[in-house]
């Protein structure tokens, strides 16, 4: 009887050892769920790509309220999932806590830094993507005046603004850039009415292209652009479809690439903890061109953007990062 149990156990062990080469990845989506047409959906697309390529399935959880983040993360860890991906800066505290409790598992956090030996933090060089959309804004503008509407006044958003201004000036040194921040509290992310008013005030001053980095507030900016017959620029995910023909382009943060890379490197054994900063070179940021804005972007504009992109990747154009020294040149 004993022998039978031991044999059975050995069989179980050997089968699990056979599959131990495969990782058991997991992903914790944040509020919004995996079909939110934004950040979470990007991550979903990335991990799905991994699943299709390798046949390795992953565990997933969709957080629906703030208190579930830590719980979900710990559940994944308890079941031995590895690596575990947390989506969005809001999950940083949960990742930090659970990663300390399970030092042998690998974690990754997207869009935030958690400084632990078993955590990979993936951040984006938003200033490089913003530089490109800034160039496009300057080239598309007929008045030589363009605008920027930020959400909450924090260094990250100034980083967007700073990259954008540099891009605008690169394409047209005489251009004027109006910059507005919506507010100084988190309510500034969810006030589309204010976003619309800020955009209208910039349009009234002569701007004809406005880039937003303001979450839900930015939908008001795009709305104002569509209603006034001017152009808006989306952010994070591809927002060109929101008002086809009125959204010049979108500055993309390729969270799908980020999530895919975490799983892939973990599977290949090349996963490394620490900060991964994804820029144009790593295809972590980009600008969006699809059927909704194809008519707005001429071949000449596209050629210039591609040239600038190549120069940034080659290091010939240096885009200043606001967060490096809390200041913006010019």
């Amino acid at each position, binding site marked *: 009887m004993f022998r039978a149990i031991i044999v059975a156990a050995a069989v179980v062990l050997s089968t699990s050892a056979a599959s131990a080469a495969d990782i058991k990845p997991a992903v914790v989506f944040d*509020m*919004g*769920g995996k*079909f*939110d*047409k*934004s950040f*979470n959906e990007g991550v979903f697309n990335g991990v799905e790509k991994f699943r299709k390529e390798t046949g390795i399935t992953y565990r997933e959880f969709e957080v*629906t309220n703030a208190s579930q983040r830590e719980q979900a993360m710990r559940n994944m860890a308890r079941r031995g999932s590895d690596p575990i991906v947390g989506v969005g800066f809001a999950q940083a505290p949960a990742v930090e806590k659970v990663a300390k409790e399970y030092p042998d598992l690998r974690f990754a956090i997207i869009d935030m830094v958690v400084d632990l030996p078993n955590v990979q933090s993936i951040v984006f060089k938003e200033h490089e993507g913003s530089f490109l959309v800034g160039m496009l804004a300057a080239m598309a503008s007929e008045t030589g005046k363009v605008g920027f509407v930020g959400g909450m*006044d924090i260094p990250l958003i100034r980083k967007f603004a700073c990259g954008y201004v540099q891009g605008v000036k690169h394409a047209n040194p005489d251009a004027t850039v*109006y*910059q*507005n*921040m919506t*507010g*100084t509290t988190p*309510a500034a992310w*969810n*006030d*589309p*009415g*204010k976003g*619309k*008013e*800020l955009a*209208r*005030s910039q349009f*009234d001053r002569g701007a004809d292209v406005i880039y937003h980095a303001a979450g*839900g507030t930015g*939908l*008001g900016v795009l*709305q104002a652009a569509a209603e006034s017959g001017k152009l808006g620029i989306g952010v994070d995910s591809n927002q060109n479809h*929101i*008002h086809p023909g009125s959204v010049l382009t979108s500055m993309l943060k390729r969270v799908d690439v980020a999530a895919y890379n975490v799983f892939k490197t973990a599977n290949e054994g090349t996963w490394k903890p620490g900060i991964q900063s994804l820029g144009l070179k790593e295809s972590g940021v980009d600008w969006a061109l699809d059927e909704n804005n194809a008519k707005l972007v001429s071949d000449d504009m596209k050629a210039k953007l591609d040239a600038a992109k190549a120069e940034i990747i080659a290091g010939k154009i240096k885009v200043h990062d606001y967060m490096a020294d809390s200041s913006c040149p010019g």
Partner: protein
Amino acid sequence: MEAFGLFILILDATLRVSTPLMLAALAGLFSERSGIVDIGLEGKMLGAAFAAAAAAYVTGSPIVGLAAGVAASMLLALLHGFACITHNGNQVVSGVAVNILAAGLSVILGIAWFAQGGQTPQLPEAARFTPLVWPGADLVAGVPLLGPIYSELISGHNLIVYLAVLAVPATWWVLYRTRFGLRLRAVGESPEAVDTAGISVTWLRYRAVLCCGFLCGLAGTYLSVAHNAAFIKDMSAGKGFIALAALIFGKWRPVPVMGACLLFGFLDAVAVRLQGVELPGIGQIPVQFIQALPYLLTVILLAGFIGKAVAPRAIGVPYLKEH
């Protein structure tokens, strides 16, 4: 001339920003003049904004959206009434509960129905209240002074903005020229007297909170279906509380309340325009200062200039009938 143009644009923005404040403040006025404190203006607006956007998206009709928004807001108002009027509950606690309920429920239902992180999908133009251009607005736009006033300021707003402006005289008329208004004011000052006269305090107060729900429904619908084109979580962004401040500022009277709302809206519009603009002699004003300006002014004006704001005497006190 350019300064005049800018001034008109600021007034134009003032009207757009003040509209939800006016509607919500008048809503609070009905409720509070009847003796029911309403902290829940914010929640009712939010609930209405969600219901309106959801219904307008599904049916493609702004009118259905408006009806849904008003219905949702009135339901929340009834809930508040049920707790405070029927069960003599604490009115502040019930109001806070309405706010929490609306903030949570709108996002949860939004995720369940539309799966876009608690937002509703963007509404197409046909499903929104779009600006109404008055006859001849384009023709007179070139006329000095009066032209811009007519074409920019008076024409070109959406239906709910005009409703908000009309709601002020309507509220004044109901409150001071109808029997219902007289009784409503009386029940907020001295419910015993109303009861003695053989009029139901409960029924009067229920009607008052329903009026409140109706107006809040308009305010919420304005946010998601008229001014913007989608519901976004927490999109009321504290407007219900600013409306409450305006209500106190205006001493619970319709016309001064409208004045207070327009003042807040004006400061907001100026703040938007002044942000990042170089002023001669002063330079650029910090964003934080401009954003604090409405609150600073409120404190200063409340402290010294408008005098004492006396609330209805029976406000916040449940009416217990003596047997």
